[in-house]
Protein backbone atom coordinates (compact mmCIF):
# COMPACT_ATOMS: atom_id res chain seq x y z
CA UNK A 1 0.00 0.00 0.00
CA UNK A 2 1.35 3.40 -0.86
CA UNK A 3 0.89 6.12 1.79
CA UNK A 4 1.63 9.69 0.83
CA UNK A 5 3.65 11.84 3.22
CA UNK A 6 0.75 13.99 4.42
CA UNK A 7 -1.19 10.88 5.42
CA UNK A 8 1.89 9.58 7.21
CA UNK A 9 2.24 12.75 9.30
CA UNK A 10 -1.46 12.78 10.07
CA UNK A 11 -1.27 9.24 11.41
CA UNK A 12 1.88 10.04 13.39
CA UNK A 13 0.28 13.04 15.08
CA UNK A 14 -2.86 11.10 15.85
CA UNK A 15 -0.75 8.32 17.35
CA UNK A 16 1.06 10.75 19.61
CA UNK A 17 -2.17 12.17 20.97
CA UNK A 18 -3.71 8.77 21.52
CA UNK A 19 -0.77 6.82 22.85
CA UNK A 20 1.90 9.35 23.84
CA UNK A 21 0.80 10.30 27.33
CA UNK A 22 -1.50 7.81 28.90
CA UNK A 23 -0.43 4.45 30.10
CA UNK A 24 -1.83 1.40 28.43
CA UNK A 25 -5.46 0.81 29.21
CA UNK A 26 -5.61 -2.39 31.17
CA UNK A 27 -8.58 -4.59 31.53
CA UNK A 28 -9.20 -5.04 35.25
CA UNK A 29 -8.73 -8.63 36.34
CA UNK A 30 -11.75 -10.52 37.52
CA UNK A 31 -11.39 -10.74 41.28
CA UNK A 32 -12.88 -13.44 43.42
CA UNK A 33 -15.79 -12.20 45.44
CA UNK A 34 -14.70 -10.55 48.69
CA UNK A 35 -15.77 -12.82 51.54
CA UNK A 36 -15.40 -10.09 54.16
CA UNK A 37 -17.82 -7.80 55.91
CA UNK A 38 -17.26 -4.51 57.65
CA UNK A 39 -17.12 -3.42 61.27
CA UNK A 40 -17.87 0.10 62.37
CA UNK A 41 -16.39 0.92 65.76
CA UNK A 42 -18.40 3.88 66.97
CA UNK A 43 -17.19 5.99 69.87
CA UNK A 44 -19.55 8.12 71.95
CA UNK A 45 -18.01 10.66 74.33
CA UNK A 46 -19.94 10.80 77.59
CA UNK A 47 -19.94 12.68 80.87
CA UNK A 48 -21.47 10.76 83.75
CA UNK A 49 -22.80 8.35 81.15
CA UNK A 50 -24.69 11.08 79.29
CA UNK A 51 -23.68 12.12 75.75
CA UNK A 52 -21.07 14.85 75.86
CA UNK A 53 -21.31 17.65 73.31
CA UNK A 54 -18.24 19.51 72.17
CA UNK A 55 -18.15 23.27 72.83
CA UNK A 56 -20.99 23.10 75.32
CA UNK A 57 -20.60 23.76 79.03
CA UNK A 58 -20.92 20.80 81.35
CA UNK A 59 -20.09 19.99 84.98
CA UNK A 60 -16.51 18.69 84.96
CA UNK A 61 -14.69 16.16 87.13
CA UNK A 62 -13.96 18.76 89.82
CA UNK A 63 -17.49 20.11 89.79
CA UNK A 64 -16.32 23.09 87.80
CA UNK A 65 -18.00 24.20 84.64
CA UNK A 66 -15.97 22.94 81.70
CA UNK A 67 -15.95 23.42 77.96
CA UNK A 68 -14.35 20.77 75.75
CA UNK A 69 -13.05 22.14 72.45
CA UNK A 70 -10.64 19.48 71.17
CA UNK A 71 -10.60 15.75 71.78
CA UNK A 72 -8.41 13.81 69.35
CA UNK A 73 -6.49 10.60 69.76
CA UNK A 74 -4.69 7.88 67.88
CA UNK A 75 -5.60 4.24 68.13
CA UNK A 76 -3.18 1.83 66.51
CA UNK A 77 -2.62 -1.88 66.09
CA UNK A 78 -6.38 -2.42 66.26
CA UNK A 79 -7.38 -6.07 66.04
CA UNK A 80 -10.77 -7.73 65.93
CA UNK A 81 -10.38 -11.07 67.70
CA UNK A 82 -12.53 -14.17 67.47
CA UNK A 83 -11.45 -17.09 69.64
CA UNK A 84 -7.85 -16.08 69.33
CA UNK A 85 -7.91 -15.42 65.58
CA UNK A 86 -7.67 -11.96 64.06
CA UNK A 87 -10.60 -11.32 61.73
CA UNK A 88 -9.71 -7.74 60.89
CA UNK A 89 -7.17 -5.11 61.77
CA UNK A 90 -5.96 -1.58 61.20
CA UNK A 91 -2.50 -0.11 61.68
CA UNK A 92 -3.59 3.34 62.76
CA UNK A 93 -6.72 5.46 63.07
CA UNK A 94 -7.32 9.01 64.22
CA UNK A 95 -10.51 9.89 66.06
CA UNK A 96 -11.40 13.57 66.27
CA UNK A 97 -14.52 14.28 68.28
CA UNK A 98 -14.20 18.00 67.53
CA UNK A 99 -14.73 17.22 63.84
CA UNK A 100 -17.45 14.71 64.65
CA UNK A 101 -15.14 11.94 63.54
CA UNK A 102 -16.36 9.28 65.94
CA UNK A 103 -16.25 6.07 63.92
CA UNK A 104 -13.62 3.91 62.33
CA UNK A 105 -14.30 1.18 59.78
CA UNK A 106 -12.43 -2.09 59.48
CA UNK A 107 -12.93 -4.90 57.01
CA UNK A 108 -13.35 -8.21 58.76
CA UNK A 109 -13.75 -11.87 57.91
CA UNK A 110 -17.05 -13.39 58.99
CA UNK A 111 -17.28 -14.67 62.52
CA UNK A 112 -18.15 -13.58 66.01
CA UNK A 113 -15.87 -10.94 67.45
CA UNK A 114 -15.35 -11.49 71.14
CA UNK A 115 -12.53 -9.06 71.80
CA UNK A 116 -11.07 -5.82 70.45
CA UNK A 117 -7.39 -5.08 71.00
CA UNK A 118 -5.88 -1.65 70.44
CA UNK A 119 -3.05 0.63 71.46
CA UNK A 120 -3.62 4.20 72.54
CA UNK A 121 -0.78 6.01 70.80
CA UNK A 122 1.75 4.88 68.22
CA UNK A 123 4.63 2.45 68.15
CA UNK A 124 8.10 3.89 67.48
CA UNK A 125 7.89 3.00 63.78
CA UNK A 126 4.65 4.91 63.21
CA UNK A 127 5.91 7.66 65.49
CA UNK A 128 9.03 8.10 63.35
CA UNK A 129 11.24 7.79 66.41
CA UNK A 130 14.95 7.63 65.70
CA UNK A 131 14.35 7.70 61.94
CA UNK A 132 16.18 10.72 60.67
CA UNK A 133 14.53 10.33 57.27
CA UNK A 134 11.01 10.22 58.66
CA UNK A 135 8.91 12.80 56.86
CA UNK A 136 5.38 13.28 58.18
CA UNK A 137 4.77 15.86 55.45
CA UNK A 138 4.86 13.07 52.87
CA UNK A 139 1.56 11.57 54.00
CA UNK A 140 -1.52 12.41 51.97
CA UNK A 141 -3.84 14.84 53.72
CA UNK A 142 -6.39 12.08 54.27
CA UNK A 143 -3.95 9.81 56.10
CA UNK A 144 -4.28 9.66 59.90
CA UNK A 145 -0.60 10.51 60.25
CA UNK A 146 -0.69 13.52 57.93
CA UNK A 147 0.53 16.73 59.51
CA UNK A 148 -2.70 18.15 58.11
CA UNK A 149 -4.28 16.79 61.31
CA UNK A 150 -2.11 19.01 63.54
CA UNK A 151 -1.06 16.04 65.65
CA UNK A 152 2.63 16.09 64.78
CA UNK A 153 4.81 17.53 67.49
CA UNK A 154 7.16 19.64 65.47
CA UNK A 155 9.42 20.50 68.41
CA UNK A 156 9.92 16.92 69.55
CA UNK A 157 9.91 14.77 66.40
CA UNK A 158 6.89 12.65 67.16
CA UNK A 159 3.13 12.62 67.31
CA UNK A 160 0.77 13.79 70.00
CA UNK A 161 -1.03 10.57 70.89
CA UNK A 162 -3.95 12.35 72.51
CA UNK A 163 -4.95 15.97 72.53
CA UNK A 164 -7.56 17.36 74.92
CA UNK A 165 -8.14 21.12 74.97
CA UNK A 166 -10.79 23.41 76.38
CA UNK A 167 -11.63 25.97 79.04
CA UNK A 168 -12.74 25.98 82.67
CA UNK A 169 -14.86 28.38 84.68
CA UNK A 170 -12.59 29.25 87.60
CA UNK A 171 -14.93 31.77 89.25
CA UNK A 172 -15.97 31.07 92.83
CA UNK A 173 -19.59 31.52 91.92
CA UNK A 174 -19.27 29.17 88.92
CA UNK A 175 -21.43 31.33 86.73
CA UNK A 176 -18.86 32.99 84.50
CA UNK A 177 -17.86 32.13 80.97
CA UNK A 178 -15.23 29.41 81.05
CA UNK A 179 -12.10 31.26 80.04
CA UNK A 180 -9.27 29.44 81.78
CA UNK A 181 -7.49 27.37 79.16
CA UNK A 182 -6.49 23.79 79.80
CA UNK A 183 -4.70 21.46 77.43
CA UNK A 184 -3.26 17.98 77.68
CA UNK A 185 -0.97 16.93 74.87
CA UNK A 186 0.17 13.41 75.62
CA UNK A 187 2.74 11.60 73.54
CA UNK A 188 6.26 10.12 73.44
CA UNK A 189 6.94 6.42 72.90
CA UNK A 190 6.93 5.68 76.58
CA UNK A 191 3.24 6.54 76.89
CA UNK A 192 1.86 4.09 74.34
CA UNK A 193 -0.49 1.71 76.14
CA UNK A 194 -2.25 -1.48 75.01
CA UNK A 195 -5.82 -2.27 75.93
CA UNK A 196 -8.43 -4.91 75.24
CA UNK A 197 -12.18 -4.88 75.51
CA UNK A 198 -13.71 -8.31 75.93
CA UNK A 199 -17.19 -9.85 75.83
CA UNK A 200 -18.06 -8.09 72.58
CA UNK A 201 -20.12 -10.84 70.91
CA UNK A 202 -20.57 -9.01 67.60
CA UNK A 203 -21.27 -11.01 64.46
CA UNK A 204 -19.69 -10.15 61.14
CA UNK A 205 -21.33 -11.36 57.94
CA UNK A 206 -20.06 -11.24 54.38
CA UNK A 207 -20.93 -7.97 52.67
CA UNK A 208 -22.65 -6.52 55.76
CA UNK A 209 -21.67 -3.85 58.27
CA UNK A 210 -21.89 -4.54 61.99
CA UNK A 211 -21.33 -2.02 64.73
CA UNK A 212 -19.33 -2.07 67.91
CA UNK A 213 -20.48 0.68 70.26
CA UNK A 214 -17.93 2.09 72.68
CA UNK A 215 -18.10 5.04 75.03
CA UNK A 216 -15.36 7.36 76.23
CA UNK A 217 -16.27 8.64 79.70
CA UNK A 218 -14.68 12.07 80.08
CA UNK A 219 -15.00 11.94 83.86
CA UNK A 220 -12.77 8.91 83.99
CA UNK A 221 -10.01 10.58 81.99
CA UNK A 222 -9.43 12.77 85.03
CA UNK A 223 -10.63 10.55 87.82
CA UNK A 224 -9.76 7.15 89.19
CA UNK A 225 -11.26 5.51 92.27
CA UNK A 226 -8.34 6.81 94.29
CA UNK A 227 -7.57 10.18 92.76
CA UNK A 228 -8.95 13.10 90.78
CA UNK A 229 -6.83 15.39 88.64
CA UNK A 230 -7.54 19.00 89.51
CA UNK A 231 -7.96 20.53 86.07
CA UNK A 232 -7.44 24.05 87.37
CA UNK A 233 -4.18 23.36 89.18
CA UNK A 234 -2.87 20.83 86.66
CA UNK A 235 -4.15 22.58 83.59
CA UNK A 236 -1.57 21.65 81.01
CA UNK A 237 1.08 19.22 79.90
CA UNK A 238 3.17 18.88 76.77
CA UNK A 239 4.13 15.50 78.27
CA UNK A 240 7.82 16.08 78.89
CA UNK A 241 7.18 19.15 81.03
CA UNK A 242 4.84 17.13 83.26
CA UNK A 243 5.30 13.49 82.42
CA UNK A 244 3.40 12.25 85.46
CA UNK A 245 0.32 14.24 84.53
CA UNK A 246 0.50 13.10 80.90
CA UNK A 247 0.90 9.50 82.00
CA UNK A 248 -2.10 9.75 84.34
CA UNK A 249 -4.30 11.28 81.66
CA UNK A 250 -3.44 8.79 78.92
CA UNK A 251 -3.62 5.75 81.22
CA UNK A 252 -6.97 6.93 82.56
CA UNK A 253 -8.10 7.52 79.00
CA UNK A 254 -7.47 3.92 78.03
CA UNK A 255 -9.64 2.67 80.84
CA UNK A 256 -12.30 5.27 80.07
CA UNK A 257 -13.05 3.47 76.80
CA UNK A 258 -15.75 0.89 77.43
CA UNK A 259 -18.32 -1.19 75.70
CA UNK A 260 -21.67 0.60 75.61
Amino acid at each position, binding site marked *: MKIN*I*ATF*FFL*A*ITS*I*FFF*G*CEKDVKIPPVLPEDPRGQIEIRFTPTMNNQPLEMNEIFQGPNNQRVLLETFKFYLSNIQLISQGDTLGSSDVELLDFSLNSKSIYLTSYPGTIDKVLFDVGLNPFLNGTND*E*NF*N*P*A*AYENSHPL*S*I*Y*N*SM*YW*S*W*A*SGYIFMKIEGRIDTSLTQNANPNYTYFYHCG*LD*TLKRSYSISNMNVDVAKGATSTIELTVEFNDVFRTPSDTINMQENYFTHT*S*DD*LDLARSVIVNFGTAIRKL
Partner: protein
Amino acid sequence: MSWRLFLTLFILASILIACGKDPAIPNQQTINLTIPEGFPQPNIPPGNPITKAKLKLGKALFYETGISRDSSVSCASCHFQFAAFSDPRALSTGVEGRSGFRNSQALFNLAWRPNFFRDGGVQTLELVALNALHANSEFDSNTPEMLRKLQSSARYRDLFRLAFNDTVSIQGALFALASFQRSLISGNSNYDRYTNGKDSNALSESQVRGMNLFFSNKTNCSDCHSGFNFTKEGFFANGLFPAYPDSGRQRITLFESDRNKFSIPSLRNIEKTAPYMHNGEVANLEDVIEGYNLGGFDVQNKDSLIRPLGLSADEKADLLSFLLSLTDNDFLNNQDFQPDND
Protein backbone atom coordinates in the same frame (compact mmCIF):
# COMPACT_ATOMS: atom_id res chain seq x y z
CA MET B 1 7.30 27.88 5.09
CA SER B 2 6.99 24.55 3.35
CA TRP B 3 4.25 22.21 4.44
CA ARG B 4 6.87 19.62 5.46
CA LEU B 5 8.54 22.09 7.80
CA PHE B 6 5.15 23.14 9.12
CA LEU B 7 4.20 19.55 9.88
CA THR B 8 7.54 18.84 11.56
CA LEU B 9 7.17 21.87 13.83
CA PHE B 10 3.57 20.91 14.51
CA ILE B 11 4.60 17.42 15.60
CA LEU B 12 7.32 18.76 17.90
CA ALA B 13 4.94 21.26 19.45
CA SER B 14 2.37 18.51 19.93
CA ILE B 15 4.85 16.31 21.75
CA LEU B 16 5.80 19.19 24.06
CA ILE B 17 2.32 20.25 25.02
CA ALA B 18 0.31 17.07 24.70
CA CYS B 19 1.04 15.70 28.16
CA GLY B 20 -0.23 18.78 29.96
CA LYS B 21 2.90 19.26 32.09
CA ASP B 22 5.48 21.95 31.75
CA PRO B 23 8.66 21.11 29.93
CA ALA B 24 11.81 21.02 32.01
CA ILE B 25 12.03 24.33 33.83
CA PRO B 26 15.53 25.70 34.32
CA ASN B 27 14.51 26.95 37.77
CA GLN B 28 14.11 23.35 38.89
CA GLN B 29 17.66 22.41 38.11
CA THR B 30 19.75 21.63 41.16
CA ILE B 31 22.19 24.33 42.12
CA ASN B 32 25.26 24.03 44.29
CA LEU B 33 25.69 26.32 47.24
CA THR B 34 28.87 28.38 47.43
CA ILE B 35 30.84 26.79 50.23
CA PRO B 36 33.37 28.93 52.15
CA GLU B 37 36.96 27.83 52.16
CA GLY B 38 37.64 25.35 54.93
CA PHE B 39 34.04 24.24 55.25
CA PRO B 40 33.18 20.59 54.52
CA GLN B 41 30.47 19.71 52.04
CA PRO B 42 27.01 20.43 53.48
CA ASN B 43 24.36 17.82 54.19
CA ILE B 44 21.67 18.34 51.58
CA PRO B 45 18.99 15.64 51.74
CA PRO B 46 18.82 13.80 48.39
CA GLY B 47 15.04 14.17 48.43
CA ASN B 48 15.22 17.93 48.66
CA PRO B 49 17.95 19.25 46.38
CA ILE B 50 18.33 23.01 46.28
CA THR B 51 16.99 24.77 43.22
CA LYS B 52 16.67 28.37 42.25
CA ALA B 53 12.88 28.18 42.28
CA LYS B 54 12.79 26.60 45.73
CA LEU B 55 15.04 29.32 47.09
CA LYS B 56 12.71 31.95 45.68
CA LEU B 57 9.64 30.26 47.15
CA GLY B 58 11.38 29.59 50.45
CA LYS B 59 12.42 33.21 50.78
CA ALA B 60 8.91 34.41 49.98
CA LEU B 61 7.50 32.11 52.67
CA PHE B 62 10.16 33.19 55.16
CA TYR B 63 8.97 36.79 54.90
CA GLU B 64 5.26 35.93 54.55
CA THR B 65 3.12 37.19 57.43
CA GLY B 66 -0.01 35.76 55.84
CA ILE B 67 0.69 32.28 57.12
CA SER B 68 0.32 33.27 60.77
CA ARG B 69 -3.17 33.06 62.22
CA ASP B 70 -3.83 36.79 62.22
CA SER B 71 -1.33 37.60 59.45
CA SER B 72 0.79 39.58 61.90
CA VAL B 73 4.09 37.71 62.01
CA SER B 74 6.43 35.83 59.73
CA CYS B 75 9.67 33.91 60.27
CA ALA B 76 11.47 37.18 59.70
CA SER B 77 9.58 38.79 62.57
CA CYS B 78 11.84 36.86 64.96
CA HIS B 79 14.85 36.23 62.73
CA PHE B 80 16.39 39.51 61.55
CA GLN B 81 19.18 39.50 59.02
CA PHE B 82 21.03 42.35 60.74
CA ALA B 83 21.18 40.08 63.81
CA ALA B 84 22.40 37.06 61.84
CA PHE B 85 18.75 36.01 61.67
CA SER B 86 18.41 35.98 65.46
CA ASP B 87 16.21 38.27 67.56
CA PRO B 88 17.56 41.18 69.64
CA ARG B 89 14.75 40.57 72.11
CA ALA B 90 15.32 38.07 74.92
CA LEU B 91 12.09 36.33 74.00
CA SER B 92 10.34 36.75 70.69
CA THR B 93 6.66 37.49 70.41
CA GLY B 94 4.19 35.85 68.08
CA VAL B 95 0.52 36.51 67.34
CA GLU B 96 -1.23 38.82 69.78
CA GLY B 97 2.14 39.62 71.34
CA ARG B 98 2.40 36.18 72.94
CA SER B 99 5.86 35.44 74.23
CA GLY B 100 7.87 32.29 73.67
CA PHE B 101 10.01 30.73 76.36
CA ARG B 102 13.39 30.61 74.67
CA ASN B 103 15.59 33.08 72.86
CA SER B 104 15.31 32.78 69.06
CA GLN B 105 18.40 31.18 67.61
CA ALA B 106 20.49 32.64 64.82
CA LEU B 107 20.00 31.07 61.40
CA PHE B 108 23.13 30.35 59.41
CA ASN B 109 25.21 27.35 58.40
CA LEU B 110 22.19 25.18 59.14
CA ALA B 111 23.14 22.78 56.36
CA TRP B 112 25.82 21.45 58.69
CA ARG B 113 23.76 21.16 61.88
CA PRO B 114 22.71 17.65 62.94
CA ASN B 115 19.63 18.81 64.86
CA PHE B 116 17.64 21.93 65.57
CA PHE B 117 16.27 23.98 68.44
CA ARG B 118 18.15 24.47 71.67
CA ASP B 119 17.15 21.03 72.89
CA GLY B 120 17.79 19.26 69.57
CA GLY B 121 14.19 18.07 69.38
CA VAL B 122 14.05 18.14 65.59
CA GLN B 123 16.47 16.24 63.36
CA THR B 124 15.61 17.64 59.95
CA LEU B 125 15.47 21.23 58.80
CA GLU B 126 12.45 20.29 56.67
CA LEU B 127 10.35 20.04 59.85
CA VAL B 128 11.61 23.08 61.70
CA ALA B 129 9.08 25.53 60.27
CA LEU B 130 6.20 23.34 61.42
CA ASN B 131 6.92 24.37 64.97
CA ALA B 132 6.50 28.05 64.19
CA LEU B 133 3.30 27.31 62.29
CA HIS B 134 1.69 25.42 65.16
CA ALA B 135 3.13 27.06 68.26
CA ASN B 136 0.63 29.08 70.23
CA SER B 137 3.26 31.75 70.86
CA GLU B 138 4.36 31.96 67.23
CA PHE B 139 2.01 31.63 64.22
CA ASP B 140 -0.74 29.79 66.13
CA SER B 141 -2.05 28.36 62.88
CA ASN B 142 -2.36 24.94 61.33
CA THR B 143 -1.67 23.16 58.09
CA PRO B 144 -5.15 23.39 56.51
CA GLU B 145 -5.37 27.11 57.23
CA MET B 146 -1.91 27.79 55.88
CA LEU B 147 -2.64 25.86 52.70
CA ARG B 148 -5.95 27.63 52.27
CA LYS B 149 -4.21 30.99 52.41
CA LEU B 150 -1.43 30.01 50.04
CA GLN B 151 -3.79 28.39 47.57
CA SER B 152 -5.80 31.59 47.39
CA SER B 153 -2.74 33.51 46.21
CA ALA B 154 -1.92 33.56 42.51
CA ARG B 155 1.64 34.48 43.40
CA TYR B 156 2.13 31.39 45.53
CA ARG B 157 0.36 29.12 43.10
CA ASP B 158 2.88 30.31 40.53
CA LEU B 159 5.86 29.96 42.87
CA PHE B 160 4.88 26.39 43.78
CA ARG B 161 4.40 25.50 40.13
CA LEU B 162 7.82 26.84 39.29
CA ALA B 163 9.46 25.11 42.25
CA PHE B 164 7.71 21.76 42.15
CA ASN B 165 5.70 21.69 38.93
CA ASP B 166 2.79 21.11 41.25
CA THR B 167 0.11 22.78 43.31
CA VAL B 168 0.51 24.31 46.75
CA SER B 169 1.39 21.67 49.36
CA ILE B 170 2.65 21.57 52.91
CA GLN B 171 5.58 19.39 51.92
CA GLY B 172 6.52 21.85 49.22
CA ALA B 173 6.35 24.75 51.66
CA LEU B 174 8.51 22.97 54.23
CA PHE B 175 11.04 21.85 51.61
CA ALA B 176 11.32 25.34 50.16
CA LEU B 177 11.76 26.94 53.57
CA ALA B 178 14.45 24.39 54.42
CA SER B 179 16.23 25.11 51.14
CA PHE B 180 16.22 28.84 51.77
CA GLN B 181 17.55 28.36 55.29
CA ARG B 182 20.30 26.07 54.00
CA SER B 183 21.39 28.85 51.70
CA LEU B 184 22.10 31.12 54.69
CA ILE B 185 25.82 30.48 54.77
CA SER B 186 28.27 32.57 56.73
CA GLY B 187 32.02 32.06 56.49
CA ASN B 188 33.66 35.30 55.51
CA SER B 189 34.66 37.01 58.73
CA ASN B 190 37.97 38.72 59.50
CA TYR B 191 38.90 35.53 61.34
CA ASP B 192 38.29 33.51 58.15
CA ARG B 193 40.33 35.87 56.00
CA TYR B 194 43.16 35.73 58.55
CA THR B 195 43.22 31.97 58.95
CA ASN B 196 42.90 31.12 55.28
CA GLY B 197 45.83 33.40 54.52
CA LYS B 198 43.96 35.95 52.46
CA ASP B 199 44.67 38.83 54.80
CA SER B 200 47.34 38.56 57.45
CA ASN B 201 46.27 41.94 58.82
CA ALA B 202 42.62 40.98 59.22
CA LEU B 203 43.03 40.52 62.98
CA SER B 204 44.35 43.13 65.39
CA GLU B 205 47.03 42.26 67.93
CA SER B 206 44.38 42.08 70.63
CA GLN B 207 42.31 39.75 68.48
CA VAL B 208 45.26 37.47 67.89
CA ARG B 209 45.92 37.34 71.63
CA GLY B 210 42.24 36.64 72.19
CA MET B 211 42.29 33.90 69.56
CA ASN B 212 45.25 32.22 71.23
CA LEU B 213 43.50 32.43 74.57
CA PHE B 214 40.28 31.06 73.05
CA PHE B 215 42.10 27.99 71.74
CA SER B 216 44.20 27.52 74.87
CA ASN B 217 43.79 25.15 77.81
CA LYS B 218 43.45 28.17 80.06
CA THR B 219 39.93 28.80 78.84
CA ASN B 220 39.00 25.57 77.02
CA CYS B 221 36.52 27.63 74.96
CA SER B 222 37.41 25.62 71.87
CA ASP B 223 36.69 22.32 73.56
CA CYS B 224 33.04 23.02 72.84
CA HIS B 225 33.21 25.81 70.29
CA SER B 226 35.40 23.95 67.84
CA GLY B 227 35.66 23.31 64.15
CA PHE B 228 34.78 25.43 61.15
CA ASN B 229 31.46 26.45 62.69
CA PHE B 230 32.73 27.01 66.23
CA THR B 231 30.60 24.24 67.72
CA LYS B 232 31.30 20.60 68.30
CA GLU B 233 27.50 20.10 68.33
CA GLY B 234 25.93 18.09 71.14
CA PHE B 235 24.41 19.29 74.41
CA PHE B 236 26.04 20.80 77.38
CA ALA B 237 25.20 22.34 80.79
CA ASN B 238 27.23 25.49 81.32
CA GLY B 239 25.69 26.33 84.69
CA LEU B 240 25.61 30.07 84.10
CA PHE B 241 22.31 30.32 86.00
CA PRO B 242 21.61 29.22 89.56
CA ALA B 243 18.36 27.52 88.52
CA TYR B 244 16.93 26.15 85.27
CA PRO B 245 13.14 26.20 85.05
CA ASP B 246 13.66 25.08 81.43
CA SER B 247 15.08 21.55 81.60
CA GLY B 248 16.65 21.80 78.11
CA ARG B 249 17.56 18.55 76.40
CA GLN B 250 15.81 16.58 79.15
CA ARG B 251 12.52 17.86 77.76
CA ILE B 252 13.15 15.72 74.69
CA THR B 253 14.89 12.65 76.03
CA LEU B 254 13.34 12.59 79.54
CA PHE B 255 16.80 11.52 80.82
CA GLU B 256 17.91 13.21 84.03
CA SER B 257 21.42 13.10 82.61
CA ASP B 258 20.24 15.62 80.01
CA ARG B 259 18.68 18.08 82.45
CA ASN B 260 19.97 21.66 82.07
CA LYS B 261 21.77 20.83 78.84
CA PHE B 262 21.37 22.91 75.69
CA SER B 263 22.86 22.68 72.22
CA ILE B 264 26.20 24.35 71.73
CA PRO B 265 25.68 27.33 69.46
CA SER B 266 28.04 28.50 66.77
CA LEU B 267 30.01 31.57 67.77
CA ARG B 268 30.06 32.99 64.26
CA ASN B 269 28.43 36.43 64.19
CA ILE B 270 28.18 36.24 67.97
CA GLU B 271 28.57 40.01 68.20
CA LYS B 272 25.22 40.39 66.45
CA THR B 273 23.18 37.73 68.21
CA ALA B 274 22.70 39.31 71.64
CA PRO B 275 21.11 38.64 74.06
CA TYR B 276 22.65 35.31 74.91
CA MET B 277 21.89 31.86 76.32
CA HIS B 278 18.73 29.79 75.95
CA ASN B 279 16.59 32.34 77.78
CA GLY B 280 18.20 35.50 76.43
CA GLU B 281 18.96 36.63 79.96
CA VAL B 282 22.59 37.56 79.39
CA ALA B 283 22.57 40.94 77.73
CA ASN B 284 26.05 41.28 76.30
CA LEU B 285 29.28 39.46 75.51
CA GLU B 286 31.11 41.05 78.43
CA ASP B 287 28.66 39.39 80.80
CA VAL B 288 28.97 36.06 78.97
CA ILE B 289 32.74 36.12 79.34
CA GLU B 290 32.48 37.13 82.99
CA GLY B 291 29.96 34.35 83.63
CA TYR B 292 32.40 31.75 82.31
CA ASN B 293 35.30 33.45 84.11
CA LEU B 294 33.49 33.06 87.43
CA GLY B 295 32.90 29.38 86.79
CA GLY B 296 29.11 29.30 86.83
CA PHE B 297 26.82 27.75 89.43
CA ASP B 298 26.80 24.24 90.77
CA VAL B 299 23.79 22.85 88.93
CA GLN B 300 22.92 19.30 87.90
CA ASN B 301 25.03 17.96 85.01
CA LYS B 302 27.23 21.03 84.84
CA ASP B 303 30.24 20.28 82.67
CA SER B 304 33.57 19.93 84.42
CA LEU B 305 35.20 22.32 81.96
CA ILE B 306 33.28 25.18 83.49
CA ARG B 307 35.43 26.36 86.34
CA PRO B 308 36.85 29.69 87.52
CA LEU B 309 39.27 30.85 84.85
CA GLY B 310 41.02 33.70 86.66
CA LEU B 311 41.16 35.89 83.57
CA SER B 312 42.62 39.37 83.87
CA ALA B 313 40.81 42.43 82.56
CA ASP B 314 43.16 42.51 79.56
CA GLU B 315 42.55 38.86 78.78
CA LYS B 316 38.81 39.35 78.92
CA ALA B 317 39.17 42.34 76.60
CA ASP B 318 41.24 40.26 74.19
CA LEU B 319 38.69 37.45 74.20
CA LEU B 320 35.93 39.91 73.48
CA SER B 321 37.97 41.44 70.70
CA PHE B 322 38.51 38.02 69.15
CA LEU B 323 34.81 37.22 69.26
CA LEU B 324 34.10 40.41 67.35
CA SER B 325 36.36 39.13 64.57
CA LEU B 326 33.83 36.37 63.87
CA THR B 327 31.33 38.83 62.41
CA ASP B 328 30.62 38.27 58.72
CA ASN B 329 29.37 41.58 57.34
CA ASP B 330 28.92 40.16 53.85
CA PHE B 331 26.42 37.70 55.27
CA LEU B 332 24.63 40.33 57.32
CA ASN B 333 24.15 42.50 54.24
CA ASN B 334 23.69 39.85 51.57
CA GLN B 335 20.95 41.06 49.22
CA ASP B 336 20.12 37.47 48.24
CA PHE B 337 18.55 36.96 51.63
CA GLN B 338 16.35 40.01 51.50
CA PRO B 339 12.75 39.85 50.32
CA ASP B 340 12.05 40.09 46.61
CA ASN B 341 9.93 42.96 45.43
CA ASP B 342 7.74 40.97 43.05
